[in-house]
Structures are given as C-alpha cells and as structure tokens.
C-alpha cells in the first residue's frame, strides 16, 4: 500500500514563468511526496481531470499573472462537481493582500507568497492533506 501524499502541481493561465512551480515540485518530491507536474497553460478543466486521474490529495497552483480570481473559483467549482471536495488546494505566487480572504472563502487552504521557505510548504501539506490511511 502506497501512503505517499499525491500532489498535482499545475500552472494555469497564459503565463510561462515556471521557476517556482518546478522548484516546489522538486522540493515536494524530495520530501517523499508523489508529484505530478502538469506543465504549462492548463485550464481548470485539465487540472481537475489530472487530479481525478492521478488520485491526487493536493492541487498546487502556481499563479503570478493576476488571473487567480478567475482561475481559483473555477477549479473549486469543478472539484465540487466531481466529488473531490477533500482534495486540498493551495496557491503559490503573487496574490494581492485584498484577494487572500476571498480565496480562503472559496476554499483555498494555503496561500504562499514570494519568499516562503520550501519547508513551510512541505510542512503545511504534510499536516493538512487528507489521510491516505484506509484508501486502496
């Protein structure tokens, strides 16, 4: 039985600046998680389909372009429609302070701004991801 936390790292929107997404994907993998990196320009539909197919516990979205208030609500809505409410969504990137409470309200659990240590993200996911004990 594999109890590794499974994380889909995705880069939605038109932006191609993938340094952060790739660095965090490697950090999570080095911390013992199973990481699936979707690559660039994924629509919310692609991302949720990947989460479903990969049996993901966590979706990590990297967004720097300012499009987060369009992308995140759509991802949350699609997760709900697919019965994936227990998949934790975290966001990393440039998110203005005023938008943080709005993202929390729709169910985004963790928001990691520039300068966040990788270890803080690893710890957050380890502590808050759904338990895989009992799953097949």
């Amino acid at each position, binding site marked *: 039985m594999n109890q590794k936390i499974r994380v889909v790292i995705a880069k939605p929107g038109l932006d191609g600046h*993938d340094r952060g997404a790739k660095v965090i994907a490697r950090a999570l993998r080095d911390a013992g998680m199973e990481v699936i990196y979707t*690559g660039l320009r994924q629509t919310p539909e692609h991302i949720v389909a990947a989460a479903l197919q990969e049996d993901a516990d966590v979706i990590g979205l990297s967004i720097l372009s300012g499009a987060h208030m369009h992308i995140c609500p759509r991802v949350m809505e699609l997760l709900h429609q697919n019965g994936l409410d227990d998949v934790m969504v975290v966001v990393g990137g440039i998110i203005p302070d005023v938008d943080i409470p709005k993202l929390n309200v729709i169910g985004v659990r963790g928001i990691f701004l520039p300068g966040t240590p990788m270890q803080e993200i690893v710890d957050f996911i380890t502590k808050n991801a759904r338990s895989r004990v009992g799953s097949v």
Partner: protein
Amino acid sequence: MKSAPSGPAIEKAFTTISGRPIERLYTPEDIAQLDYARDLADPGAFPYTRGIHPTGYHGKPWTMRQFAGFGTPEETNQRYTQLLEAGGTGLSVAFDLPTLMGRDPDDALSLGEVGKCGVSVASLADMETLFSGIDLGAITTSMTINSPASMIFAMYLVVAEKQGVSWQTLSGTLQNDILKEFIAQKEYIYPPRPSMRLITDIFAFCMEQVPKWNTISVSGYHIREAGATAAQELAFTLRDGIEYVQYGVDAGLDVDAFAPRISFFFNAHSDFFEEIAKYRAARRIWAHVMRERFKASNPRSWQLRFHTQTAGVSLTAQQPYNNVVRTALQAMAGVLGGTQSLHTNSLDEALALPTAEAATLALRTQQIIAHETGVADIVDPLGGSYFVERLTRDLEAEALAYFDTIDRMGGMVEAVERGYPQKEIAESAYRFQQAVESREQLIVGVNDFVAVGERPIVTLYIDESVGEKQVRQLVQLRATRDNARVERALNALKAGAAGVENTMPLLIEAVRAYATVGEMCNALREVWGEYEESPVI
C-alpha cells in the same frame, strides 16, 4: 606568491551568488597570461573587452529606458508621456499576456489576463492610441514581444507611416528572441523551426526597409531570472546569438548586412563583480565568434551592444524599500560593465506592477548614478583589476565549454528540443533555493534580518474593467472594418507562410486592414501548428 592570511583561519568557503568559488585575494599571477593588445585592447578596438566605444559614456550616455505597460493603451500612453517628461530617453513597451501569446482579449484563454501584466494591444487601433501624441521619429522604442513580434512590429511600422515618419529613419528594438522563450520564459506559439523563419524574415525585411532598427535583442535576462547562473546566462545567450546568425546565413543573407543590427539584453544580478566580468566576457566572446566563426569583416558585426535590466528575481516582497538599494547596486554593475541602455526595477515589483511614484524613483536611481557618482566618466574603470580580469577569463572559458556541448548536439534548436538548457537551469534554480533554505545564501529581510509587523505599501491594482473595455472595442472594430479586406490579407498570409515568401509585407497589409493580433497568429497556427513542451523537473 600569494601569502597566507595572517589573521585567524577562515573556514567558510566563499562563492559568488552563482556558486563560483572565490579566493581571498587576487594577484598578478591571476593575469599572468593576459596580453593587453590581444585580450583587452583599448575601448573601441577588437576584441572590445573594455567597451565598443573609444569614448565610453563621454560620447553618448546610456539610454535610460524604463519598461512600462499596463491596462488599456490610454493608461499606458499617459505613463509614457510622464516618463518622457521626467527625462526618460526611450520607451520600452510591456505587453499583456494575451498579446504576448497571440490571443485576442475575447479569446477564452485571455479571461482574467487582459491588461494585467502589461498593456493590451489587439489591433492597429490600440497601437495608434498607445503612441498618440508621441513622435516616433523623435524617440527610440523597444518592444518586448517574441512569438508575435512580426505582427506587433508591422503595427508599429504602420503607425509610423500614418505619422509620416519614414521607415528608413525609424529606430528602436524588437526583442524577437524565441529561443530564450523555449529555454526560459515559455511564451512560444509555433514550433522552433517556423519560429526561426519569422525571425530571419524580419532580418531580411529590415536590411532593405528599416535599416536602423535593431531586429533582435538576444536575451539572457529571462534565462537568468529562471534560475541560471551568470555563466549559464552568458553561455546560453551567446549560443542563441550564434544560432540566429547561422539561420540568417543559411537563409542566404550576407552576415555583415544583418549582424550589425543584432543586440543583446543581459540581467544585472546582485553579485557585483561577477556581473561586470560577465558583460566584459560577452563582448570578447562575441567579437571572436563573429570574426572567426562567421568570417564577418564589418567591425560593427563584431561589436556586442546590450541593454541591461536589474534582476527582478532579486526583489523581495518583504521590506520592499530594501529593493531600492539592491536595484541601485545592480544598476551600477551594468554601468561599470558598459551597458548601452538600462532599465531599473521599481521597489514594489515583487508585489505588483509598479506605481507611478515607484517607477519615477527607479528612473531617478539611474540619474543619480549618471550625474552624481562619477562612475560613468571613466571607460571600463575596473579593467586591469586582478580579480575582474580573472573572473572575465573564467566566465569566458565556462561559456566556451557550453558552446562545445551545444555544438555537439547539432545547435541550440536541437539542444532546446532535447530540453538541455531547460534542465541545466532548473538544476541551478533548485540549488539556489536550497542554499537559501539552509541560509548559506542570506537574503536580507527574507531569511535573516526579518522584520515583524511590517506595514504594507500601496501597490497598483488592475481591475477587471480593462478586459471588458478591450473586448467592447474589439467587437466594435470587427463591426466597422472592411472584413473582406481582412479575409483576403489573412489568406495571403497563410499562403505565404506555407511557401517561402517573406511574411513581413503580408503582415503589414493585414495590419493596415485592422486584422487583430489573434487573427494573424491564428492564421499562422493553422499553417504551422503549436508547440508543446514536455516539462522537465
């Protein structure tokens, strides 16, 4: 001989920010092999290590070129007017992501992105507004656009035509560097080979029609921002330059007819001396490459001209005023390295696009360096420094080793297709992040000297009305233009792209008919398809 340090033994290994080991002291031994006439020479003489102009900044100061663009063309036009009034000497256009990716504001993929990271330009109508009241004959404009470079350049040419400014006198720079998009920034549309053809079409077109235009700005900036070391930035950028020259020559162009219009764009990161050495090494390598590899005989083909931007990636969201200091020091390295033009970042750019106040302070930083510090009065003031000369030589050697590796793969296009530079950069980015985590690399305000209870600063917020406004204007444009003419122009473009005809005149005709960026890019998508990378982590 180097003497042993008399003080207490120092255990810590010192490295540059790129991880290059650094000794305590450099001495004449480090430059024993250096031959002044062969390796350095006076500024203005081959191999131009010390600079391309004999008079340095006495003859011509660097261009203070601040990259700007946000929201609608009207808003950005106001920012340009303000920058020119504040003493800016050139414009530099930042486009939004839909424009950079060749998508119209009403494309489903543009949702939430219009006007956010730059100005939205969908058609000639937007370009006319962007430069309204600005005489294109009196300024130089740099445009940061890559995959749709030909389309945006065609728009600029038609605006000039409408202002009555001759293309023969028009001057400015097109970034037009697709290889670094595949390598680092990832704003590509078409596969590498048709993308390279668009670029050689621009080379050929400008030789005849727009002779003073800098057709490409081969960019290390984004490669560095993606995590490359100084040596990787130097190596991959110059190897990209080699690829463009090779493709131009292979397209039948005379090297000395197009190479003088090739320019470069480097990062100014925080490691002061390593950056200065990087610019000096770049000039020396390029001079040799052009003279020996390509047998260019025009000295202007040998001379590497470059723009510099301070390192966006070094800016911190924490204690943002510290960024003013970082930027000033980085800008100083660019000037001591002999840059032809410079952009200084604003203090708030780790948080948002800059406010007008922050952008003005960034410009003032350059003006203080130029007019108060005296550093620009001497050409290559660090030339002859044991340390800087040694670093220059070491960086050069490291870049040449990368050239060999990439040559063995068949060239940069082939290396990109195998993900080689992408992998090298991802490795360096991860190593740097680990150094930050372990606090081997300190970042003031982030992993040391942290402040509690910081008050947030005021930042620029782009609201959603920009997208709505741009979409409304687009709907109106499509209803009022001559759509039959647009259709004809797009069909001619597709036919030309499928054959060997130069695409520039075809795009200019489409622009005159008010075809949109998305329509022109889609026409070429139909012919060439879209590129998708296999991601490497």
